[in-house]
């Protein structure tokens, strides 16, 4: 198939849904259970995963390679990002200021991990909810720094490259322009980003957030754009939770340019975030069954236009408690169209 699979057998013993008193991502309280984070409080923390799928200094493979079955050490980096010391929170419930901080940390980790010679792609993501298979409830995300460009990204790069070759334009810029003109699939937007259910949504409540400016990575964002990204993330996450009055499960993935230079500046690619929620109703899951898993073709039982309208009905203004530009409390509402 031309794709790599990571074998990480030590992950079978990783911590699985511990009780809140023994959460490894909470602060370590004086005299209390020693968690992964050896201080009584923190703001945002990044650390190397105790159970990594990829490691900077990986052990030798457990099996020998052959001509038919190539094998190589699982080199890379796996980090955990803990969003908040509050165990019972979620990213959706965090104030927009905290999400803004997270965007800044994402940007810093992308820059830092990109500097490794062995890293070709930095993948930032969050799995949220037991429906997705999370093993820890404490609000957190992950970063995988891969030694190659993963297949899903490679496919997007190929399509973006082909579109630019054929039209001279960026594929995602064209998609965004089409969505903003059409309007039916737009969930919310601000000066720097738009959130929409893509025309080709695979999941009923799939949402993409794309920068209105043609950018390739978080490191290309300016201050106002980072703030706008935080506001739109808050908007989408809050709408998700309001949709069925429950803490909405999802996979959230950041798609950025690869980090190897390889003679390609990836100028044809476009930064965006994708959400894949597994729910198709409040109580029913969208399964990746035969067609999706075996053939790679998704069947979506819903219309993107209808799902976007449902989410749009739950969009509310984002309130900033701190006006960073003025450095004072403001109660400012962000623009959400």
């Amino acid at each position, binding site marked *: 198939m031309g794709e790599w699979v990571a074998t990480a057998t030590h992950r079978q013993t990783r911590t699985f849904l511990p009780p809140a008193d023994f959460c490894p991502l909470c602060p370590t309280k004086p005299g209390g259970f020693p968690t992964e984070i050896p*201080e009584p409080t923190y703001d945002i*923390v*990044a650390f190397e995963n105790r159970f990594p799928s990829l490691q900077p200094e990986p052990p030798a493979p457990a099996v020998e390679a052959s001509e038919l079955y190539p094998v190589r050490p699982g080199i890379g980096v796996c980090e955990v990002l803990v969003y908040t010391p509050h165990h019972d929170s979620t990213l959706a419930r965090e104030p927009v200021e905290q999400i803004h901080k997270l965007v800044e940390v994402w940007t*810093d980790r992308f820059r830092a991990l990109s500097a490794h010679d062995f890293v070709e792609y930095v993948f930032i993501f969050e799995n949220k909810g037991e429906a997705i298979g999370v093993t820890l409830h404490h609000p957190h995300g992950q970063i995988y720094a891969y030694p190659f460009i993963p297949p899903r990204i490679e496919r997007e790069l190929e399509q973006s490259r082909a579109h630019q070759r054929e039209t001279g334009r960026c594929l995602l810029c064209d998609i965004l322009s089409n969505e903003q003109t059409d309007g039916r699939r737009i969930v919310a937007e601000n000066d720097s980003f738009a959130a929409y259910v893509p025309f080709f*949504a695979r999941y009923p409540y799939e949402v993409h957030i794309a920068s209105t400016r043609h950018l390739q990575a978080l490191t290309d964002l300016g201050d106002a754009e980072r703030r706008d990204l935080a506001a739109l993330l808050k908007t989408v996450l809050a709408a998700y939770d309001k949709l069925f*009055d429950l803490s909405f499960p999802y996979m959230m993935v950041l798609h950025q340019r690869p980090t190897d230079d390889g003679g390609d500046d990836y100028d044809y690619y476009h930064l965006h975030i994708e959400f894949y929620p597994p729910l198709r109703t409040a109580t029913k899951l969208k399964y990746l069954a035969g067609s999706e898993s075996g053939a790679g073709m998704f069947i979506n*039982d819903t219309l993107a236009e209808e799902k976007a309208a449902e989410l749009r009905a739950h969009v509310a203004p984002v309130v900033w408690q*701190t006006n960073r530009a003025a450095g004072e409390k403001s109660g400012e509402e962000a623009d959400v169209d």
Partner: protein
Amino acid sequence: MQRRQITLEDGRYLIFYTFDEETNASPESDEEAGARAADSGRRAEPEAEPQATEERRV
């Protein structure tokens, strides 16, 4: 934004991120989240039966 890196007992790194401007805002409680949901206008309509079968090119 400031970074403070430490090394854990098993050799892994851990980075504390702190920020110049702190906010007193705190996460929403269950009650707040519920109240906000109740105030947010109409609930999503029950899912309609699928009315379209089509291929949308990705």
